[in-house]
């Protein structure tokens, strides 16, 4: 936990992280984390290339560098939980549903996609896995996640709701309304704030008096933790503890995970954020804090992992990405006569 001196850690690009603490985590869990993060990263890099090459029409918001958060949280979720994402949600949906063909088909606008080709990268859902939707209106899904938690409480199901949001979303009024309502009504919702320090091209220091946002949780008497978002073990441990508590006693929690995205706000460039140049120095420093490399290095140090196993994993991930991409590229587009389908459910 980074509760002490976290501001220094954010400001100082030379801050060296300690090695991940793997104690008390099952090796099978560690391998799963490594695989899931690697798969999500490879899928997003594939999407970045395809966007650059003009194969994808719609905007894509890539979360490369942020994989540890969704992977760490998803480990404690079950299919009947209710998860809501935002514009940068490839990792959130793949965290619970690793069907790469569906993700690729969706960003390509094909009818086999997660949203039957009606959504594209910014509108993803997988109902059977509890992923109830991600949309690009900033903070749009935060109150919906609160309602999903309220539903769960009324249904006495012990399912919980997850609201993934970014630091920019904490600047919308409805975020504060949602925290307050969730607290006074004791709603089982976990707010997972991925603080990657940027809202589009604007750094936190230009938008808020502090670089962290967990003070908003304290204002609403919501238990919160500030975490190193590139440490999958910390994310897993904290979210699993919070989620366990929420299942037995419904109430809201908040995690603030400090991280960084390797690409610009939207699409494939790493040097530009919506037309504004990014700091090459910061990016290089953050790449040293790569959540995948840190886990892999710690596992190798602890003799849980070997270079040979890593090679096998790399091949497996590469094949999965290529095979699913090829399949998705051959998939059909939605029928032209389906334009007006599903405007209303009861037609």
């Amino acid at each position: 936990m980074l509760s002490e001196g976290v501001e220094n850690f954010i400001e100082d690009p030379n801050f060296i992280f300690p090695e991940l603490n793997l104690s008390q985590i099952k090796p099978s869990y560690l391998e799963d984390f490594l695989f899931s993060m690697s798969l999500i990263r490879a899928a997003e890099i594939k999407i970045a290339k395809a966007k650059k090459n003009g194969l994808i029409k719609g905007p894509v918001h890539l979360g490369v560098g942020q994989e540890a958060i969704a992977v760490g949280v998803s480990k404690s979720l079950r299919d009947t939980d209710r998860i809501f994402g935002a514009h940068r949600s490839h990792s959130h949906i793949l965290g619970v549903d690793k069907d790469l063909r569906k993700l690729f088909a969706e960003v390509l606008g094909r009818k086999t996609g997660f949203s039957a080709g009606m959504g594209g990268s910014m509108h993803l859902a997988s109902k059977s896995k509890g992923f109830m939707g991600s949309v690009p209106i900033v903070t749009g899904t935060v109150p919906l996640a609160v309602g999903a938690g309220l539903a769960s409480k009324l249904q006495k199901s012990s399912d919980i709701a997850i609201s993934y949001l970014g630091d920019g979303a904490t600047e919308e009024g409805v975020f504060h309304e949602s925290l307050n309502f969730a607290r006074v009504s004791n709603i089982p919702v976990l707010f997972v704030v991925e603080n990657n320090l940027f809202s589009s091209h604007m750094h936190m220091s230009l938008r808020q008096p502090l670089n962290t946002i967990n003070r908003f949780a304290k204002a609403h008497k919501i238990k919160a933790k500030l975490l190193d978002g590139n440490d999958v073990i910390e994310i897993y441990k904290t979210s699993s503890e919070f989620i366990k508590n929420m299942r037995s006693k419904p109430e809201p929690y908040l995690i603030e995970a400090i991280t960084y995205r390797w690409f610009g706000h939207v699409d494939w460039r790493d040097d530009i954020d919506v037309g504004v140049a990014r700091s090459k120095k910061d990016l290089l420093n953050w790449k040293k804090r790569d959540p995948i490399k840190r886990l892999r290095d710690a596992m190798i140090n602890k003799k849980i992992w070997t270079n040979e196993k890593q090679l096998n994993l790399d091949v497996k991930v590469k094949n999965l990405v290529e095979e699913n991409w090829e399949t998705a590229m051959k998939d059909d587009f939605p029928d032209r006569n389906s334009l007006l389908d599903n405007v209303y459910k009861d037609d």
Partner: protein
Amino acid sequence: MIKTSYSEAILSGFDYLLQNYPEVFVLGQGLWSPWYVGNTMKNLDKKYGKERIIDTPVSESACTGAAIGASICGMKPIVVHPRMDFMMYAMDSIVNQAAKWSYMFGGQLNAPVTIRSIINRGGSQGAQHSQALHSWFAHIPGIRVVMPSTVQDARDLLISSVLCPDPVIYIDDKWLYNETDILEPIKEISLNSVTPQCLKKGDKITIVSSGFSTLLALKASTFLNRVGIGAEVFDLRVLNPFNSKNILDSVLKTKRLLVIDSGWKACGMSSEVITSIVEQIPTNTLINPPRRITLPNSPAPSSEVHEKDYYLNEEKIIKFINAYYVF
């Protein structure tokens, strides 16, 4: 026979839904207080518990969003806005989220939420305590807009709205709360089958209206009938999706069309009704140009002197018809 008031009919609709559907719950401001919602929700919190009848903080946006989120997860929530003007804070949830949830995800998910919004005006309440914005919402594909005018519809269309798998904005009007009628036993009606209803037969002019305006139209038609002008009155009931069939048939018969709307003229429901009809009828069908009576183009005034000029009444309607229509 016992007569029921419009407001009691709404209460009876709530009672039926809460009694028969465990997935129904209600949230919004003032639900534990008759000051906000009149007797339309009287004692529901005592009968069904404060877990299911949730009086909320002043957070229209979060509460509407929460109702939508709960609806996506198997519940049938009703979120109540005791005055439509305050609902403006919830526009993102309604227009960007609820209206599009089914479409965006290819029909995989849907948001069967009911957003009850009360029109509450007059009494010098002024510009921010008076608006009737039904036309706005009727513009949006994916939302159904319901505006009951009769006592029977106040109850039955609330039930239809809540049971509908789509997001519905149900708009009731405090000026109708004391209207009474004898109610038929409850029958669940699919909202999809609800079309504009002919409340009075006539052969000289078709008058189309909704909500409180329909009451004015009926009163005006009674007078018109006495002087030999048979007015056929249609109550829209469902503003979106708008089904023009019955009205079209009527206009082909009467050859005169008047729309009365309690909202403003520009891009309003009256524009939609007239356009939809005119584009479907042969040129020269109409004996008089189609006309509409709406609010003057200003925010609601506060002074009682201005209010008298601002709001519609039956005398204004009769005068208008005499001035613009030749029979």
